[in-house]
């Protein structure tokens, strides 16, 4: 049981990075970006390939991030420069990534059409860390190392996001998701801010995939299916918990907490005997119900806000 909670938490932290990425596109930019589904796999495949080639695992995560940024940037260009609706732009990138991911994994095996890549018995972040001096000093096994690394990534990414969205550039990205017309009137290149926002979002999603592949010990071309819904579920749970907060940092922490809660619930549900193949529909139902509730709540709020405002 403790094992289940521990691995649930660790996985929650890894998926939280994806949820933070989805937050950037869905909440900050107000774009439902399906690139996510191919991008988590892209992060996993790139990392798997690099680990096969004995590249340093930390460097592999960084390269996965950059690969994700490129994928997100492409969706951004399709949407802004070629005027393709964002949903379709995301789908187009996602579909392309399916083939690309297989190509990436095929490079490692030198066999065409490799749809998954095992990372068992290959050194990764977690084994590296637990066998490092620091890991030995802390006497950490692989499981604890994975938990610690998850915490480090989440804290670091929250700190970076908090800083970034406070900068001039970050503020203009936030404003873009809020009111594009106003942004252009204020001299903001909204094409550019969307492209940067989508690149950042998908970079994070790829990092999530990079850690996930190392944690579960393989990369699989289908591992991203439904991932955007999982991200949304985490965001919605987080927002429900920290409903009253106006602070951006708390909001981000809420998403991580939401993701961990989601994973723990999933672990427990599976532990209790529900077939894991039913998970996706369960997640979808959770998101549907939550979205209905929030749209209902905002309607109520809008109604009460209309009444009684003072002059001017």
């Amino acid at each position, binding site marked *: 049981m403790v094992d289940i909670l521990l691995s649930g938490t660790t996985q929650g932290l890894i998926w939280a990075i994806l949820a933070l990425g989805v937050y950037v596109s869905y909440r900050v930019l107000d774009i439902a970006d399906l690139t996510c589904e191919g991008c988590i796999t892209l992060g996993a495949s790139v990392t798997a390939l690099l680990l096969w080639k004995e590249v340093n695992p930390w460097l592999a995560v960084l390269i996965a991030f950059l690969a994700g940024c490129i994928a997100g940037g492409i969706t951004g260009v399709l949407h802004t420069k070629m005027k393709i609706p964002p949903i379709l732009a995301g789908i187009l990138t996602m579909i392309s990534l399916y083939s690309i991911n297989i190509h990436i994994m095929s490079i490692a095996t030198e066999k065409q059409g490799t749809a998954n890549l095992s990372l068992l018995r290959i050194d990764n972040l977690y084994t590296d860390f637990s066998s490092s001096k620091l890991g030995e000093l802390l006497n950490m096994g692989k499981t604890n190392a994975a938990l610690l690394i998850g915490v480090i990534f989440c804290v670091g990414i929250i700190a970076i996001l908090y800083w970034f969205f406070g900068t001039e550039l970050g503020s203009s990205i936030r404003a873009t998701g*809020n009111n594009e017309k106003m942004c*252009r009137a*204020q001299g903001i290149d909204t094409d550019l801010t969307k492209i940067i926002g989508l690149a950042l979002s998908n970079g994070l999603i790829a990092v999530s995939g990079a850690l996930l592949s190392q944690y579960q010990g393989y990369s699989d071309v289908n591992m991203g299916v439904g991932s955007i819904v999982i991200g949304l579920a985490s965001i919605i749970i987080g927002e429900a918990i920290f409903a009253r907060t106006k602070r951006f940092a708390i909001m981000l922490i809420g998403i991580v907490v939401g993701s961990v809660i989601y994973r723990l619930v999933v672990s427990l549900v599976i532990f209790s005997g529900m077939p894991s193949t039913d998970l996706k529909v369960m997640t979808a139902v959770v998101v549907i119900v939550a979205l209905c509730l929030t749209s209902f709540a905002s309607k109520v709020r809008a109604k009460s806000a209309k009444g009684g405002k003072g*002059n001017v």
Partner: protein
Amino acid sequence: MSEPLTPMLSLKGIQKSFHRGTVNQKDVLKGIDLDLAPGDFVTIIGGNGAGKSTMLNAIAGVWKVDGGTISVDGVDVTATSEHKRAKYLGRVFQDPNMGTASNMQIDENLALAARRGKLRTLKWGLTSGERASYREQLKMLDLGLEDRMSTKVGLLSGGQRQALTLLMATLQRPKLLLLDEHTAALDPKTAAKVLSLTDQLIEENHLTALMVTHNMRDAIAHGNRLIMMHDGHIILDIAGEEKKKLTVEILLEKFSQTSGSEFVNDRALLG
């Protein structure tokens, strides 16, 4: 009239059609010529669909015009994109929701506006020094917003937002201020307040401005020059002493003389 100074705005033969080349083609601007001297405050009236908003959008670069040239202070901006042109322009829209980011705080909105025309870098987006100066400027609006700088703009009333948008439009002194019926969505009392704030900001900053209004009295009472648009043309352009002597009756008469039709704008006669 000879014009020794470079015009602050110069429109030459501006044409714009929507749905061009389809059966629905609609020619909206049919050759607009207009020169504004620095410091001109021009009010614009005209019936519904005369092309007033379209002219302002053409100047702002919301889309490219189909013909003609647009220069701001001697710089040809005809081919310049909307966000680059914003460097020269302050804009306030009819819809109070349009001019601000409602999920962001008052001070954050001002900080966005203060960087109009500048490269947005990885420097902090809102410094404490800035906040102090915004507080002073908000005090001038006399709406108590200086004590609510961390409030999300979405919680403000329409009038408060228009006042804030005006301040945002002038925070970085624009070469040209574009106001498109910016008081039309407000109740009369609030509209009057926002209008007097408009006068004040234009006067203090010596701005050149174009103000569309549906209210003939306002058009007569404000600014030093008045133009009337009809069916994609400027059909009246009255400035100086003649403008000061204008009345609603004279305007209506001039309108039917030049256009050969009755002035059709239900709202224009009211108020």
